[in-house]
């Protein structure tokens, strides 16, 4: 008797209010979903912001294809992860690795990514070093026959995109160090005539030339790392490096970074 005198009005009013609120929400929701308005949203491009790099953390950005992604490494660190660990061992350095690489990426896809993905654009501006591997998916698909005539054509296009990519990267971040990981030859046993080998050497040579035009860009050769006995450093798919293989790539990259560091 004592409680129900105030309990009932309280309960009635609050539940009725809640009920009306929810019903209005329901009607609002249904009408919004069933009769949606035409979108009036515009794409927002990230503005260039030089402050982004001033956060005191040494930022490594990894871009490109499965090699940078670290596919084949049982620890899934890849060479980018190895590099991060090595840099972390330096004194007084806080380091972060942002890995935006995607399996199977071609130069075209990477270019679009750099131009359009706001998250990538932001991280490029944050970066102190960019680790890059791209191009191999433009040239051939593992397991398919390589036709030199076709490859020559796609190589020309890919090379011009490499240039666009480097151009875009340096525009977004003038001070950044870009390390391009060259191509290696994983398929020697099915390439007795050396057709593919010639192609890969040509590619590496051409990219090296692009790199030379930009002071920030360093070409990191890997062709020799997976020499005649290369399968030791390849993973089960006989295509991607294994943990040891990635370590060897990382070691090469560290040589460049350490030199930078000491300057």
């Amino acid at each position, binding site marked *: 008797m004592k409680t129900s005198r105030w309990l009932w009005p309280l309960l009635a009013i609050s539940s009725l209010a809640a009920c009306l609120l929810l019903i209005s929400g329901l009607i609002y929701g*249904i009408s919004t979903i069933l009769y949606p308005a035409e979108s009036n949203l515009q794409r927002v491009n990230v503005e260039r912001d030089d402050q982004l790099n001033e956060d005191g953390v040494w930022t490594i950005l990894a871009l490109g294809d499965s090699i940078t992604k670290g596919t084949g490494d049982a620890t899934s660190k890849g060479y980018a992860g190895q590099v991060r660990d090595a840099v972390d061992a330096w004194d007084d350095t806080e380091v972060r690795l942002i890995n935006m690489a*995607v399996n199977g990426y071609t130069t075209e896809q990477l270019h679009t990514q750099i131009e359009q993905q706001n998250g*990538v654009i932001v991280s490029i501006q944050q970066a102190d070093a960019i680790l890059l591997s791209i191009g191999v998916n433009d040239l051939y698909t593992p397991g398919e026959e390589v036709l030199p005539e076709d490859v020559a054509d796609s190589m020309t296009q890919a090379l011009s995109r490499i240039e666009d990519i480097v151009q875009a990267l340096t525009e977004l971040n003038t001070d950044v160090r870009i390390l391009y990981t060259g191509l290696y030859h994983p398929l020697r046993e099915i390439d007795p005539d050396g057709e593919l080998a010639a192609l890969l050497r040509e590619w590496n040579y051409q990219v090296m030339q692009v790199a030379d035009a930009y002071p920030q860009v360093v070409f990191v050769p890997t062709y020799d790392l997976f020499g005649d006995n290369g399968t030791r450093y390849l993973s089960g798919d006989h295509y991607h490096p294994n943990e040891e293989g990635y370590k060897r790539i990382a070691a090469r990259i560290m040589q460049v970074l350490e030199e930078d560091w000491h300057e």
Partner: protein
Amino acid sequence: MNSLLPLVRNEMLKLWKKKRFFVIIGIIAVLIPIFTYAQLRVSLDRQEQIGTSDWRVSLQQRINDYANRMSSPRVIEEWRKWMSVEVQRLQYYLDHDVNPEEPSGVTFTREFVKNAVGLFVPLLVMVIASDLVSSEHAQGTIKLLLTRPVSRWKVLLSKYLAMLLYVSLIVTALAALCYIISGAVFGYGGWHAPTLIGFQVAGADIDTSNVNMIAQWRFILMELGLVFYTGVLVGCIALMVSVIVRSTAAGMGIMLATLIAGTILSNMVSSWESAKYFFMVNMDLVRYLSGDIPPIEGMNLSFSLWVLTVWAAASIIVSFSVFTRRDVY
């Protein structure tokens, strides 16, 4: 009709005195801190892993993560589709510089309520509704209730109305507690954070031609309205079970089994098309607001609303005809 008001009052007060609502508040109050902490761990972990607190970078990384997983030939087609939609949706957020998960009490509430619609809210509703009639049988009070000069349909209708009002209280209390508790960790702001609605899923692609930006509080209002509808449906079904099955334990068991089976079904029925006529598969109405992929292709809001409404209407018809005609022993 004026005799209905005291009946509703009776039912409301009985439920209150049974302390059922306290049980529900208790369950919510215990669970939300746990989820808040879990959410905090997740975001801290992600931040640590990625090493950045810039949401654009971490979101981009998540998108690329999906892209990488999609590239694997071993991914189930269904998953690939889901990830493809998710990639496009999240990228759209990024492209328009809108953070889909701006950390705040309001965002947490939005996400929690969205995830609660499938099972958590139905379970809470069940706690209240599944013994509304059967407990009267179990206690023997049904005899007192039905020997008043009040028609049986009025007695049952008053129970339905009490259920409706309590479902409103449960949904509101869930959102309020969510906001209060998580706000202590994530902050109490975020009411006006921009939120995108209007994504339309078509196969593995997403149609963004009707995407619009709204304040987050509007999203929550609509979300709660949709959750409320699902809650009322579950209440109707639970009440029907309560009318038919006189044992409270059996009634709860039936409801629990149905709801849990529903969650399992929603996750695996994509290839069984006629499963879309089950009410359990249609309970997650919020997905049509946030633009998530429906469990079965071709489902949309109007379809789900129809299914839920037909089920609710059928359960109401069954319970009224049984309740008003049945002999009480």
